[in-house]
């Protein structure tokens, strides 16, 4: 078991339940890039909070999932399918009263960028916003 536990350190990567524990190991760059989901409503876009609107996902799991999907050969089709799934999940939880978010006409996945501020004062004003994928009803 000890050998299995240390092996991922040498071979790298996550092989659950073993791991090389690589998280937070790379030095942070001056530009922060994060994927974020926005719901499309009649009045514009609203940011979605994964833990509330798309449970049982939390933000890190959902965005890492989109990152992994983007590396696959069928990335475009699978990202669209995943966004449709997120939209239906949002609707299910809304219908069940799990959240009080507005009715959505669609959902968009963006890549947001910020120039890193030591105190995150610009967290509400990303310097860049790139649309990666969208699904509309």
């Amino acid at each position, binding site marked *: 078991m000890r050998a299995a536990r240390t092996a991922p350190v040498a071979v790298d990567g996550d092989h*659950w339940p073993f791991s*090389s524990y690589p998280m937070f190991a790379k030095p942070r760059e001056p530009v922060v890039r994060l994927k974020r989901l926005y719901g499309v409503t009649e009045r514009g876009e609203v940011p979605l909070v994964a833990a509330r609107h798309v449970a049982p996902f939390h933000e890190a799991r959902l965005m890492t999932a989109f990152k992994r999907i983007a590396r696959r050969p069928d990335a475009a089709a699978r990202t669209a399918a995943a966004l449709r799934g997120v939209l239906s*999940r949002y609707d299910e939880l809304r219908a069940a009263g799990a959240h009080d978010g507005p009715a959505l006409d669609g959902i968009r996945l963006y890549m947001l960028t910020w120039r890193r501020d030591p105190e995150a004062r610009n967290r509400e004003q990303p310097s860049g916003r790139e649309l990666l994928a969208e699904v509309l009803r």
Partner: protein
Amino acid sequence: MSAAPQSRAIERPPARAYPAPIGTPAPPRRRRARAATLVTRWRRFWFAPAPPFPLALCRSLFFAWLLLAVAPEVRARDWADVPRAFWMPTHLFAALRLDVAPAAVLALVDALWSAALALSCVGLWTRASTTAALALGLYVLGLPQCFGKIDHFSGLLLLVLLVLAVARCGDACSLDAWRARRKRHAVPWSGEYRWPIELVRVAMVLVFFAAGVAKLRFGGLAWLHPSNMAAILVSPH
């Protein structure tokens, strides 16, 4: 005229055994003795007799924590209706051909896991209940890892479940021990009560060691800079 130099006997200190220079191979007998000492230390580290109570207490506390704090947060039932596009099984789930079961089955798995955790905590049918906790825990803890991201805390939990499933952790502080005490005397000390605790300790140390190695590999000394530490804290917000 000067006198002929008088020969004087040089007084030498008595012969002493000085240590051999560094790098000189030790004599075979000493090497064997050293190896024997290492083997003895190794065995003593893992298998020196220990009382059953500390291991039993660890079992009880660990399963109580899983039951009260972890199980309510990690429910297999929650993943029944998650879109299929997110299904990315871990190597272990793929090898075992495990998939997302229907919602009713997942709810049953959650209930059985909680029952196994409760029985393991109080030490009733300990071997069977800890084995069930391991088997069900593999599925309940592993299922969320198949949806995009691996939460690293769960791996160590599964390893501890594995250790406790094969260890004699129910010999004290348990209903099994209470029932057995009516038939026999106190449980003697044994190495069986030491190695599980040491193994989990070593596993925990290796977790932090691996995390440290990763920092050196990917970040080097720059990782230690205060600005990087601050950035790690600020970036998610």
